[in-house]
């Protein structure tokens, strides 16, 4: 019984303790790695960045934020626009960049 209680306690604590916020966007015009390098460079320069991911085929750009830090949707869109592209869809998800990368890779294999 005690074990169940401990497991229950951990299962409720885990999401809060490891809360992940990632901005995931679909970007228009991103067709060439040489040209899209600017997106990666600008995302890497953000102090709030935990991890970043760019994928040409799925048109996905993802920015995982450091815990307790934030980048507004407007600021994120400006990063993409300054690199020469436009955001067609944006959402905040609780997946890590690694999870999104795996998801995109899996979808690409299908």
């Amino acid at each position, binding site marked *: 019984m005690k074990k169940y209680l401990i497991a229950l306690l951990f299962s409720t604590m885990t999401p809060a303790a490891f809360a992940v916020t990632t901005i995931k966007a679909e970007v*228009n*015009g*991103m*067709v*060439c*790695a*040489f*040209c*899209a*390098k*600017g*997106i*990666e*460079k*600008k995302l890497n320069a953000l102090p709030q960045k935990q991890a970043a991911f*760019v*994928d*040409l*085929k799925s*048109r996905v750009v993802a920015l995982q934020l450091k815990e307790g830090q934030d980048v507004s949707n407007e600021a994120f869109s400006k990063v993409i*626009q*300054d*690199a*020469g*592209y*436009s955001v*067609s869809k944006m959402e905040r998800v609780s997946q890590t960049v690694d999870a999104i990368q795996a998801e995109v890779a899996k979808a690409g294999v299908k």
Partner: protein
Amino acid sequence: MFKQLQVAFGTLLLSQLSWSAQAAALMGFEDSAMLMTEIGRYNQEWMLNYSPTLGHAIGVEQMRMSGKGEQATTISGINYTGLIKRWNMPAAQANVWFNGSVGEARGQFDGFAYTPSLQFDAESTRLYFLAKARMIRAPHMNYDTAALQSGFSFYETGFNQTQPWFVLEAKTMRNNDPGLQITPAIRLINKHYFLEFGITNPWQGEGFAPRLNAMFVF
């Protein structure tokens, strides 16, 4: 002896290189620098530009060219690149660019030189098209150029991989020989560089010339 052979081979290779194609992107992103080189049998060019903001880049350019039996002319100038219009589509991008230099010509022709050009390009992750027209003028000199390119990538790649392309270019240059240059080329693109290797007029004995084009963004 071995070193002399290396130098001779390098000189021979460079002498056979031909004027290269234009890449789609004529500048990097905001606050970036781009180096472009085009080495050719009849023409050589390099350009270094800096983009303080998206859509505008300033830099320096030097180009060298010659007609049949002429002494070479070198144009050294200040270059400006402007993005006139960009269309960002779900799986494609198209652009209209202005690019041009003003400077000084020296060699067969001397004096004030100017090289305005317009370029349209459209590409997806699999297909590519470019059309470009450029005036290359100085007193008594006219090397106006028009070029068309079309190509396809062999397969799609991830952002961190190198993507190979096949590109075919048709180009004309006034007062140059050969006047029409057809160049099939292999293009390699990844996020660090753009390299293109081609053969101009592969069926033509004297016009046959390997070609190299490279771009780097910092």
